[in-house]
Every structure is written in structure tokens, then in C-alpha cells.
């Protein structure tokens, strides 16, 4: 009888531990990705030889821009991307400007806010490290037009927040300047916010680090996390 009681106690301990382990795994904070089903996207600008409508293949996109906290994990593992160690050729002097140190956000920078002051090179390196990639301009614009991604973050910041795209300066190749008459060649001149984004992207250099410029990652495949995150949505 004594032996039986001991067994029951042990059994309860084991069960509790098992449940704890399970609840811990469910509360992981991996970034969520959503499936953007493919379709046709009408580019705002076209070059000679471009298709009238661009076919966007289905892909996965993070629901939110990469946060300071997530970016910190990246620089912990990749010291060449730390604030004091990054090469100027990859990121200008404003790189992680608001962070207190290489591995310290400081009291004004919230871990859950989107990371900004990161260059295209840095954004690209982050997404590759995460097993993902930067979305193309068309993918990003397509997801926005389908209302699959939104501006919740921007409302919080109370200003326009832009995001890097893989081919940020290559979509409207021939329209080097978007001033004056160039705007009239847009397929939808009334889409003012898209116009702003296209013209903003065109002014960027890949090593620029700006206060209102962050990024999110995309992926072609249903990777382990994406699959899990997607089924939760």
C-alpha cells in the first residue's frame, strides 16, 4: 500500500511537469507569418518590357515588422552587425542610433517596437539568418493591397513607417526621378500613399539607416514555424 501511494505522488509530479512543459512550448513568441495567396498585382509604375500585371506566387510574410528584441538576438549571434562593429559600407552612422550599446537597447527603446535605423544590408542579413528573405516590393505592395498586412504599428508610432524590400530601388527603373510629370505615368495617380512609398524607396541607398525605416521577412516555404504560426491564425 505504501508503495502504491509513493507511485501516485510520483505520477502526479510527472504529470504536472509534463503539463508545465506543454504550456511553456505553446507560449513561445516566434514571429507569426501568414500565407499570402498568389494573384495578380498591378504595378504602380512600369518599364518597357514589363508585364501589364505581375503574377505574385504564394508566399509567407511576417505579420509584423522585426522588433528590437528580435534584432537583438541576431546581433548577439552575429557580432559583425553590432552597433560598434558594423562596417560603414553596410550601414551608415545612424545604424541602431537609438540603442544604448551593442547588446543594450536602453530605456527609450522598447523590445516589442519595430527595429529601425537598420540598413538594407542589415535587413537582408537578418532575414537570411532567420532562414527567410526580404519580400520584394511587389510582394509587399500586393500583401498591403489585399489588406493582409496593416498599419497598426504605425498608428502606435503616430507617423509613417516604411519598410525595406529586396528590390527597393529597382521597380521603376527608367523613372529615375519621380518628380513632375513622372507621376502622371503611374497606373493609379490617386493612390497617393503608394506613390509616396515608391518615390521614398527610390531615394534610398542600401546603407541608409533611417528613423522610420524597418523591415519584415518573407519566405517561400512553409517552414516549421510558419506552419505552426499559420495554423494558429
Amino acid at each position, binding site marked *: 500500500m505504501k508503495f502504491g501511494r509513493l507511485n501516485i505522488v510520483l505520477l502526479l509530479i510527472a504529470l504536472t511537469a509534463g503539463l508545465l512543459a506543454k504550456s*511553456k512550448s505553446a507560449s513561445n513568441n516566434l514571429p507569426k507569418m501568414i500565407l499570402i495567396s498568389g494573384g495578380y498585382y498591378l504595378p504602380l509604375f512600369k518599364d518597357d518590357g514589363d508585364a501589364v500585371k505581375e503574377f505574385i506566387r504564394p508566399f509567407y510574410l511576417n505579420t509584423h515588422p522585426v522588433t528590437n528584441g528580435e534584432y537583438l538576438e541576431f546581433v548577439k549571434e552575429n557580432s559583425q552587425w553590432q552597433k560598434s562593429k558594423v562596417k560603414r559600407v553596410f550601414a551608415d552612422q545612424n545604424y541602431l542610433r537609438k540603442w544604448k550599446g551593442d547588446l543594450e537597447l536602453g530605456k527609450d527603446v522598447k523590445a516589442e517596437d519595430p527595429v529601425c535605423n537598420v540598413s538594407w544590408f542589415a535587413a537582408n542579413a537578418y532575414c537570411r*539568418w532567420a532562414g527567410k528573405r526580404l519580400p520584394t516590393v511587389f510582394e509587399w505592395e500586393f500583401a498591403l493591397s489585399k489588406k493582409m498586412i496593416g498599419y497598426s504599428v504605425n498608428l502606435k508610432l503616430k507617423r509613417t513607417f516604411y519598410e525595406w524590400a529586396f528590390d527597393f530601388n529597382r521597380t521603376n527603373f527608367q523613372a529615375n526621378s519621380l518628380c513632375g510629370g513622372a507621376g502622371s505615368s503611374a497606373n493609379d495617380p490617386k493612390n497617393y500613399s503608394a506613390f509616396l512609398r515608391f518615390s521614398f524607396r527610390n531615394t534610398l541607398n542600401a546603407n541608409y539607416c533611417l528613423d522610420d525605416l524597418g523591415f519584415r521577412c518573407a519566405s517561400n516555404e512553409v517552414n516549421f*514555424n510558419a506552419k505552426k504560426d499559420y495554423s494558429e491564425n
Partner: protein
Amino acid sequence: MKNYLIGFVPAALLAIAVITYVNNSSVNSNYNNNQAKPGITVNIVESKPDECCKIQESAGVHSENSIYQLSSTWKDQNGNSIQLKKFQGKKVVLAMIYSSCPTACPVIVNNMQKLEASIPKKDLAYYHFILVSIDPDRDTPQRLMQFASGKSLNMTTWTLLTGSKDDVAELAELIGFKYKKNSQGNFIHSNLITFLDKYGVIMDQSEGLEQSNQELLTMLNK
């Protein structure tokens, strides 16, 4: 018999519980490993520079603007893996092209060949000519080799490279080269020849196809 059962049943339950727990916790530890990274696979291949390169790097390391800071690995026309910093120590003339390019790229390559021809033979060892493909889908090392033979390039002073789309994009951003594939599978692209000093810093760039050989030579010898 009764006592035996009382002992056996909880023991069996305990065994099941322990197995469940072990399984659970191993799944959990996988999660924890992944939790630090917001993705799945982390494939950062660190190359180990040999002694020669370490010395060269320390010489050029003062330059924050060297494109040899790129850690990307490329394939040359022989299928060998190389990094751009291999060319450290030489003056480099670099262009981004693709082998099936119908018009502009042949002119660029031709201009680079003319430039090569105007360098005294004895000095040629101090220079290197690099063509980087922007069309990795089609430009395999074999195809680049065919292209080089077709143009009769001198393979002691020329190297043709192909790499991943990401690496091509990174290099393009570093030197300010723009390109875009159109619906016919051709590229619209900058016509750019880039001159690098022996540390991989851009000395000058020629844009367009109109520069005379004399103008290019002046850029090269800056």
C-alpha cells in the same frame, strides 16, 4: 495477488507518465533552441581565411569602404569557390553583366578588353578584370567559360563569377548597379565599369557606353 496488483498498476501508470514527460520535454527543448531565432535554419558558413589573407586583411582593414568586406562566396568559370577579397592587392576592373545579353554587355566587355590591351604586358600582373553575372539562373560556370572562350578572354587576368541572387543583389547595391529582369527574360541594367584599388575601395566608375579608352585608362590609373 491484490497487493501485487496495487503495486503494478501505479508502476505502469508511472512508466507511461515518465515516457510522456520525456517526449514532451524533448519537444520543448527544441522549441527553446529555436526561440532565440525567429526562423528555422541558420546557415551562416564562416570561411576560415588562411594566413596569407589575414595579413592582407589587416593591411586593408582601415578601409570601412572596401567591398571586400563582403563574405559572399562565388563560383568562377572553373567551378571553384572564391571570395572577392581574393583579388586584394591588385587593381580591379569589375563589371556586372549576363552572358545572353544582346547589346550593352558585349560593348562593356569589349571596352574592358581594349583597356587591358593598353596596359604594358609587364604590368599586367598588377591588374585583374572581373565579370559578375546578374543571371545566376542561366549563367552556370560552364556557360561563363563558353562566354570567355567566345570573347577570347585572357584567363590569367580575367575571372568570371556567378553567385546566389542575394549575393548578386548585395554586390550590386555596394557598387550602385541597378538591374531588373523583364517579362521577356532579359535584363534592363546600368552600364557600369567599376575601378577598385588594391584594398577593394571604389576609385572611380564609368557609366554608359561612350567613354573612350583614354578616359577609362585615366580612371584605372588614379
